[in-house]
């Protein structure tokens, strides 16, 4: 059926993504963010294998020394190499960020898509719940969860993910809702395309852009929450350490050993910076707008 093929060709497929890529490449801040992110990730993933030191190894001759040729980022109070610890902390921070974002992505997309597809009163009720949840101080609940159920890392990202899904649900629901009303979907239906085909060929490619944008923007939000909890002593527990716990430890000793605060803080902020710039750039490139409905 040639008509069907034509409709399929009209979908925002490859060309949309190629245009977006071209636009993204022109955005210097976004490119900077992307490159910085790749470097930081590689540093954290590959770094520990190349490092002369291990994560817990103590150098008894070098207690709390500032950066030197021996220890590029200095050592902490126990004589551990800070660069290696930054790499390991980054693995935890980025790992929690990605895992918790996946949790929030799953909940948000399912909830939003369901509300969007069902429509009508169910949709109104579901979105009203989201509105109400938006208004509640959720971080408080995460703290409560961490206190009540112990400070377990799996629980940590489940709890964070369970808090950060609201915006994603709104975005997806809005997209599905507006797509349902769009003419090319009706045209596809009238041409006899199956529901499955419509969802696969039209809905998913259209929802993918906004979801990609908000996933990129959720990761820094999640990392911030993890570091916040770790700073309060409610997040990642020793002997594991994330950038958040390193900032906390560094802040306690900053008067004598400022590098213990500065270096993890710099890594953490640079990562947030990069992710936000990349997310903003993606949003502009894909021309996604925030909307409440």
């Amino acid at each position: 059926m040639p008509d069907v093929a034509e409709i399929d060709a009209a979908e925002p497929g490859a060309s949309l993504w190629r245009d977006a890529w071209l636009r993204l490449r022109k955005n210097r801040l976004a490119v900077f963010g992307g490159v910085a992110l790749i470097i930081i990730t590689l540093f954290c993933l590959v770094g520990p294998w190349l490092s002369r030191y291990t994560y817990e190894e103590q150098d008894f001759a070098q207690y709390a020394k500032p950066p030197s040729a021996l220890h590029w980022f200095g050592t902490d109070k126990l004589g551990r190499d800070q660069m290696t610890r930054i790499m390991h902390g980054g693995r935890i921070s980025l790992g929690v960020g990605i895992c918790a974002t996946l949790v929030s992505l799953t909940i948000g997309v399912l909830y939003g898509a369901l509300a969007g597809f069902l429509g009508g009163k169910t949709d109104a009720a579901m979105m009203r719940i989201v509105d109400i949840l938006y208004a509640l101080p959720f971080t408080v609940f995460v703290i409560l969860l961490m206190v009540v159920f112990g400070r377990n890392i799996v629980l940590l990202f489940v709890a964070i993910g369970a808090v950060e899904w609201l915006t994603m649900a709104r975005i997806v629901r809005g997209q599905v809702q507006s797509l349902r009303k769009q003419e090319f979907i009706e045209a596809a239906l009238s041409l006899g395309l199956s529901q499955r085909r419509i969802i696969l060929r039209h809905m998913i490619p259209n929802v993918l852009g906004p979801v990609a944008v908000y996933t990129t923007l959720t990761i820094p939000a999640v990392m911030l929450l993890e570091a916040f909890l770790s700073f309060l002593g409610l997040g990642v527990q020793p002997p594991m350490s994330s950038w958040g716990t390193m900032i906390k430890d560094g802040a306690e000793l900053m008067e004598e050993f400022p590098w213990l605060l500065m270096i993890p803080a710099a890594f953490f902020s640079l990562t947030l910076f990069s992710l936000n710039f990349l997310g903003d750039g993606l949003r502009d490139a894909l021309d996604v707008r925030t909307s409440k409905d």
Partner: protein
Amino acid sequence: MFRFIAARLLQTIPVLFVVATLTFFMVRLVPGGPFDAERNVPPEIKRELEAYYGLDKPVFQQYLDYLGRLVRGDLGPSYKFANRSVNEMIASTFPVSLQLGGMALGLALLLGITAGVIAALRPNSALDYTASGISMMGICLPTFVLGPLFILVFALNLRWVNASGWFDSADRILPAATLGIAYAAYIARLTRGGMLEILSQDFIRTARAKGASEARIIFRHSLRGGLLPVVSYLGPAAAGILTGSFVIETIFQIPGLGRHFVTSAFNRDFTMVTGIVIFYAVLIVFFNLLVDIVQIWLNPKLKY
């Protein structure tokens, strides 16, 4: 308008009920009672304590008792401070947090709106890029990085203010600035966007054609519409400032409700934690109601 407020107030009741129920049972799910951690408590004293707090009754009975007291505004006694009620603790520490949060929010609005308007008046100028760059930094430097840095620079090196404490008015500057700056940055971005949107509208051209001065165009014609995104952000901002105060009060050692909440959470003082969570929920719900009212007042199309 009155009907709207009444309807919204009625809506808050189920929300608060759910919050209270959720926190109550979540806390009861913890293995072991609140006094298990203390080793040197003899069994008879422990029994007495449990009777005092009503912990010997069935859980559902405890829940009904709790709700009953809650309706009367009584959040119950503290588990850790035997002689003090949760209400008293909140009453003694919340004013400090309110002052901190109020100053932070005020600062955020003042700085954010000013920077946003300036950036919007000269879009894509050096001034605009500077304002946008600074606000991006404000967003990416979390309070727990900024706070210690501020102490390091302004208290320990320059010795302008004290590093911690809450005694004289100079002690308020650093904490309020640390807490407010991230929100100032976000508000600046929202203001810039809102103002640019309004300034590109046809009715601004009408105002110019009437001979209105630039100042009049900004203050009388644009600000009201341009600030709508900022107003709808105030709800989340208040919630964020509230939770942000946990960290700020810990860093600057301020005797506020936030630090008290975190300590209570560590001490497993469950009545205290439950009580504070409910108090926070009430606070946020009412603040959101206030924001909605301001929004209706600002946007004539929403009139009830």
